[in-house]
């Protein structure tokens, strides 16, 4: 009954090809990694995961990604708000720049952070003189994650703010609400779903980030070794089963987040 796919016999072949491509490229590999990690049974899986270096790496990743996400929520909400609500010189330029981290290779992003904050740089030496080390320590990882996930929250709340009917706000004023009250009672609830789904995406991206982090983290096992780099190390040292085990944990976490984001979005479009 569809106008596009009606008619010729070869459409069947077409369908099959597309679906096969889809399954082979996306579904098989993901199933593959789950089977691989349990290929030798539970015991080796548990052994790989309970390796202190492994679970420390996972914990560290979660912790740092969480910090980056929280920073992102504040910065992103502020910037999203400013870019939509205020008119000022350079606004559209800044608005275009938001996507830069998406366009820039992550390895280049890592290199930039290394150059800017490294021990030989202005900021790096300044921080060092007051006893803070950035590069090859946790702060650098957070900065790398922040850089890479920067656009998520902003891009998630901008459409919501654009959609927000000015008259809703005006209605609040005519009902005697103060500016602050209007913001928290009318505007903020509108932005909240965007903030949440943007933050979730940023968090999951932070967990997964490799390129930017591997260059700045120093990768000291147990200290600044994040999960994705740990997995990379395991692959390099020819232990695919161990890599797969940690991958499964990271993957499951990411899928959970993705699922929650989908739920949030479904509820939002359902409420409309």
């Amino acid at each position: 009954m569809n106008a596009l796919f009606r008619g010729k016999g070869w459409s069947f072949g077409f369908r099959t090809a597309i679906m096969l491509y889809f399954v082979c490229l996306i579904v098989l590999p993901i199933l593959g990694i789950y089977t691989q990690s349990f290929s030798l049974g539970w015991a080796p899986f548990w052994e790989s995961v309970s390796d202190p270096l492994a679970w420390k790496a996972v914990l560290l990743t979660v912790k740092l990604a969480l910090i980056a996400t929280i920073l992102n929520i504040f910065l992103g909400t502020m910037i999203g708000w400013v870019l939509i609500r205020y008119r000022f010189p350079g606004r559209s330029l800044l608005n275009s720049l938001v996507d830069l981290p998406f366009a820039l290779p992550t390895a280049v992003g890592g290199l930039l952070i290394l150059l800017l904050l490294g021990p030989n740089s202005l900021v790096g030496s300044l921080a060092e003189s007051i006893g803070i080390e950035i590069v090859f320590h946790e702060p650098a990882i957070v900065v790398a994650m922040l850089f890479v996930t920067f656009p998520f929250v902003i891009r998630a709340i901008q459409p919501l703010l654009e959609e927000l009917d000015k008259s809703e706000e005006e209605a609040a004023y005519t009902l005697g609400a103060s500016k602050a009250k209007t913001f928290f009672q009318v505007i903020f609830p509108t932005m909240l779903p965007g903030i949440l789904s943007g933050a979730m995406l940023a968090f999951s991206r932070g967990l997964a980030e490799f390129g930017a982090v591997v260059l700045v983290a120093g990768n000291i096992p147990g200290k600044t070794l994040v999960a994705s780099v740990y997995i990379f190390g395991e692959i390099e040292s020819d232990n695919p089963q161990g890599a797969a085990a940690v991958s499964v944990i990271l993957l499951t976490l990411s899928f959970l987040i993705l699922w929650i984001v989908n739920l949030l979005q479904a509820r939002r479009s359902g409420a409309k």
Partner: protein
Amino acid sequence: MRRLWITLTYLVFAILLIAPLVKIFTGAWKDGIDGFIDALTRPQSLHALMMTGIIVVIVTLINTLFGVMLALYLVRAQWLGPKLKRLLNSIVDLPFAVSPVIGGLMIVLILGPNTVIGSLFEDAGVKIVYALPGMILATLFVTFPIMVREVMPVLQEIGAQQEEAASTLGAYSWYTFWKVTWPSIRWGVIYGVVLTVARSLGEFGAVLVVSGNIMNKTQTATTLVYQDVENFNVVAANGIALVLAAFSVGLLLLMEWAKKRKEVH
């Protein structure tokens, strides 16, 4: 209040985005123009840039074709039940949630030289992992959702009625697609292409794992940057990074342009 927020915004942009961009442009010239040119004209640089170019072209072509087709099926096809459609729809997003390193690992696990399929291909004389096909596969995996996600909302928005109208006027699938559907989704597809190019240009983790990063063989521009940094050859890394960054900024401009056209429609 307003002034404060704007100033803060500028500050964040300056620190987080503009400063690094400036740094890379100045950094590359640290050893003068010769240093920059030397870094770029090393044989491994040229080879790496070529590899990146090949991957970008092939991946973009395949991803565009299959992405648009899959989006059409997911939105329009009636032979997929609504439940199956929903399931497929959520699977499309999975690569976004998968760390690129893990994406690479998956391909190694399935097609690596020690696996059944991998050795089968090896016997046939085709190397997949640690060779170009594997790198293309890895990049395809990573970029897969982009096109589908750009095209699907446009298709949903325009609805099926124009296509139905075309069919009652006697037009069959191909004609309808090119004359009726394509003009409406064109800008969405172009936006998706730009995003795919950006992503495949910059893909690092997955490619690093799959390629083995063998100089002059499977090294791409991003993995070369990584290697240069590991070898403390920062100026050389900077040179390549500058080329990549210049491309990215160009793509960013394209993105803005495509986005505007998309909205006009």
